[in-house]
């Protein structure tokens, strides 16, 4: 069942054409890797999906609705969620504060004064979110900045889940992680998939993309240049489609080692 369909998406900034008619579709619960060289238009494409950029031409259909005229807030309500590379976490605040930032549950103090944070409920629900992801954190009450990169990624994903997303777009989630933490994040992506949540994974780390995706879309010069089933492709084919032909064995070998 198709969840997201982009067709003929065009976007230019002044005289610079970034996207020249991109077609892309994502099924429910599918993990799609979006790869491409720097400047291929990956970030621009994602921002047209979340609504930060308005596409110049083309159509975006999400869950059977035309979302092109909707602003980012409305698209998020429909279930499009994006986790940026910097994670947008408040590093000195604890786990629950980050997960519920801006949407804290409140109660009345002594049944009289409204607007008081229900910290117990926040902590409880935050712990539930982390458990749902099958992840472990040292302490739910510790500041997020004291966590490792992978643990911070867990908090960011848990926050995304509170919006009940149908699609989560992740921008380079493994780029800054220690090797042993990468597997944890890939497991989180698999967990999202098992819950029926679709994931678009933007990454330069092709090993990770090959390990976790169902399909790999290669963006090149502002077009979806290739659409490869992960099970039927390999590193050298992906690399060759990213750079566009030529002798690629050396580049592929390099990636394989990386």
């Amino acid at each position, binding site marked *: 069942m198709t969840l997201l369909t982009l067709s003929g998406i065009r976007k230019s900034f002044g005289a610079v054409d970034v996207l020249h008619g991109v077609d892309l579709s994502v099924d429910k619960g599918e993990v799609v890797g979006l790869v491409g060289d720097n400047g291929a238009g990956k970030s621009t494409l994602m921002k047209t999906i979340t609504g930060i950029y308005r596409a110049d031409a083309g159509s975006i259909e999400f869950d059977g609705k035309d979302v092109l005229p909707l602003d980012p807030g409305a698209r998020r309500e429909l279930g499009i969620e994006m986790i940026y590379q*910097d994670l*947008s*976490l*408040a590093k000195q*605040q604890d786990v629950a504060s980050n997960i519920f*930032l801006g949407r*804290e549950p409140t109660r009345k103090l002594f049944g009289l004064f409204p*607007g*008081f*944070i229900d910290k117990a409920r926040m902590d409880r629900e935050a712990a539930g979110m982390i458990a749902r992801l099958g992840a472990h954190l040292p302490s739910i009450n510790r500041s997020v900045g004291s966590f490792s990169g992978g643990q911070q990624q867990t908090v960011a994903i848990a926050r995304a889940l509170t919006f009940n997303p149908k699609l989560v777009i992740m921008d380079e989630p493994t780029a800054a992680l220690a090797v042993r933490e990468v597997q944890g994040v890939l497991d989180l992506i698999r967990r999202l998939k098992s819950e029926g949540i679709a994931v678009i994974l933007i990454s330069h780390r092709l090993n990770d993309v090959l390990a976790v995706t169902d399909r790999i879309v290669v963006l090149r010069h502002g077009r979806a240049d290739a659409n490869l089933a992960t099970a039927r492709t390999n590193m050298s084919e992906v690399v060759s489609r990213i750079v566009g032909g030529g002798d690629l064995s050396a580049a592929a070998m390099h990636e394989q080692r990386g």
Partner: protein
Amino acid sequence: MTHETAQPGLWARAQRTSVEQLHIRLESFIVLIVLSAIMAVLSPFFLSLSNFLNILLATSTIGVLAIAATYVIGSGGLDLSLGSVMGLSGVAGAYVAVNLGAPSPVGLAACILAGAAAGYVNGQLITRAFVPAFIVTLGMLGLARGLALVISDGRVIYGLPAVMVYVGQGRPLGIPMPVIIFVVTAIFAHCLLAYSKFGRHTMALGDSESAARAAGIRVERHRRILYTLSGALAGLAGMLFMARINSGDPTAGLNYELTAITAAIIGGTNLFGGRGSILGTMIGALIMGVLQNGLNLLAVQSYYQQMAIGAVLILAVFIDQYQVRKESRV
């Protein structure tokens, strides 16, 4: 790479609990106790109920300003105009009551309104004109002080009505009115900062503006409210001081921002925002109060007190940064 991080000792765990649960650096509490003990040994007058109330009375003005400093610095901002706005507010209240003959409640309200107005201007300039907070509030430091001198014609305004004087000198149940107002304000400010959406968003904003923005917090509006609140608190401090000395003094609150910011930093407020608590700031304010009171009892010249406060500020920031560096070291 050290090995002591593997098994955190009792002290380290107590420190962590204190920071996580109460947002207080344990050290500040110990400094307060040690400082009080030293003063008690050095001066026979230190440990007495009347002196204790004296300390609280002196702390009440600084304490209210320190609350303002905690909110603004915690949000990643800075308000250098606290002392000047406090001076302006006292003069404004006294002018309205004495020169214009307005009733006492109007005079008291004028103090807070004058402060809030100055803070509102700060907030507008910072969030709409994009002038850095450091410059805006430094400019306001000069503007407010100058305006206070203009309104009062450079002279102290005497002769406040009795009700206004009561706010500063009355002692219901033996407790000075400024102390009561200060404690009530501190409790309210603590609850607002620690348990309300507004307070938590304030700290999140100082922690990461982009995270706050991504979470849908209206960042600029929040900052405008904070600077207005800061001004209003400076106005309240001005009101308490004016009522206590029974006059509107245009030089009141000179250099008080130094003491207020120091109190907030000693209390564990992160100079760069994101962390701070009113409880901690109150300990910081008490440290400053005990320090000044003790030095007074020991008849140390006020010039040296000024130096001591400046040194304490630098020392407090040094210790805080040292701790942060130590904690972030892997």
